[in-house]
């Protein structure tokens, strides 16, 4: 011990304390998982407070059911939220909530990883929460079917997401937003701008409920 005191400068003799302080500081750091699947699950923890751990969503905060949603669509929407193309409209309460969350994703790799993780979640079906005339809605759905497919399965080539299996309250909310310009107003939102006039073909709230009631009958 006397040799240490002789050879080591006095200020360095506190090295046990330095190691302790350093390790304590590092214990607070978090290092991301290297494996994309594990990373996706890790990043998804940011989504859990609103979308739930199983991705089933929470209507109370306007968070849709995203369990099993196709990764290309999740990725595309996350990019839009990150760039402010979606979710930056004055009256888009849910979008304004989602925007900062998407912007908190650290990298494009994280976006891809979390999108794949969302797709890997087992789909969750919820019972219908709105009432509407599905038969009347079937005729209205002809317009939607042109892009989203007759069975509402979606079409990645047209960037049209799957509708079958999506919660009715969410579909109705988004249709209202497209109609009023709360969603799809940005010049950079190509798909949104295409969707707006389509939503405008629904003349009123009854039409929205009817078409959504028909979508509820489609098998995902």
């Amino acid at each position: 011990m006397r040799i240490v005191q002789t050879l080591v400068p006095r200020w360095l003799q506190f090295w046990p304390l330095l190691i302790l302080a350093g390790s304590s500081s590092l214990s607070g750091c978090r290092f991301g998982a290297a494996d994309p699947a594990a990373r996706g699950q890790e990043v998804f923890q940011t989504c859990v407070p609103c979308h739930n751990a199983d991705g089933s969503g929470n209507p109370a905060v306007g968070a849709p059911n995203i369990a099993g949603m196709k990764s290309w669509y999740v990725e595309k929407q996350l990019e839009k939220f990150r760039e402010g193309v979606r979710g930056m409209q004055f009256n888009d309460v849910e979008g304004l909530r989602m925007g900062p969350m998407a912007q908190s994703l650290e990298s494009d790799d994280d976006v891809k990883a979390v999108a794949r993780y969302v797709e890997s979640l087992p789909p969750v079906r919820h019972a219908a929460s709105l009432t509407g005339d599905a038969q009347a809605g079937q005729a209205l759905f002809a317009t939607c079917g042109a892009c989203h497919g007759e069975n509402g399965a979606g079409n990645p080539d047209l960037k049209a997401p799957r509708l079958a299996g999506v919660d009715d309250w969410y579909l109705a909310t988004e249709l209202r937003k497209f109609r009023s310009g709360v969603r799809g107003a940005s010049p950079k939102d190509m798909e949104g701008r295409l969707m707006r006039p389509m939503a405008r073909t629904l003349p009123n709230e009854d039409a929205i409920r009817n078409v959504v009631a028909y979508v509820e009958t489609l098998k995902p």
Partner: protein
Amino acid sequence: MWERYITAASTYAHSIDHLFLLIAALVGFWLLVAEGMLFWLVFKFRARDGRPTQYITGEEPHLKRWISIPHFIIILCDVVIIVWAITVWYHIKQVMPPAEASVRVIGQQWAWSFQQPGPDGVFDTTDDIRTVGELHVVVDTTYQFELMSRDVVHSFAVPAFRLKQDALPGRVINGWFRPSRVGTYDIQCTQMCGIGHALMAGRIVVETPQQHAAWLLRNTSPASAAAATQDSALAAPGGDSSTIAEVRR
């Protein structure tokens, strides 16, 4: 003095700074006196060989005055601080100077939105200017604001203005500010409001009247107006078609 560290960009920023300085000076002075006295007494009456400990009850007047005199002076300092603080608070929070412009500040998880009444001076009309995350104001203009929340408790804080006011759901809170320096300043929510609280930021852009007019023109230029008209044509009645400017962060 503080401006070296944080810009003062509103007319009442200096009043707040002076109050903080007064409190820091008075409290700091008494802290130094008390700590100095403590250590001096510890040193003076340290253990010494052959010197017995004195046992005192502290009841004699010449001992009691070491407590009572500083006590009364500190109370006097407290009164100075309280009077000064109430005066500052009264002039900022209780007196509302006549408004030269108005703005509605809306907090929600996790964004700040702003609504200005446009040329007609009336809210909720077609010429309203609505922005998200960014508020453009004119320097040397007194703004009255209506602060509200769409969901939970937030706090509208603009450090450069020395402005901080809670936003409560269900209530409209009125206040004012008068920007005194051109520049861009941070807005941050300072009330824990959920997982995205730290991301609930924005900025205030203080401009000259010419800069502000140019900004308005850019956002209501013929091209923008045409786009807005097209959007309005598409929008359903009662929708979000009244927006002139939708500025993004």
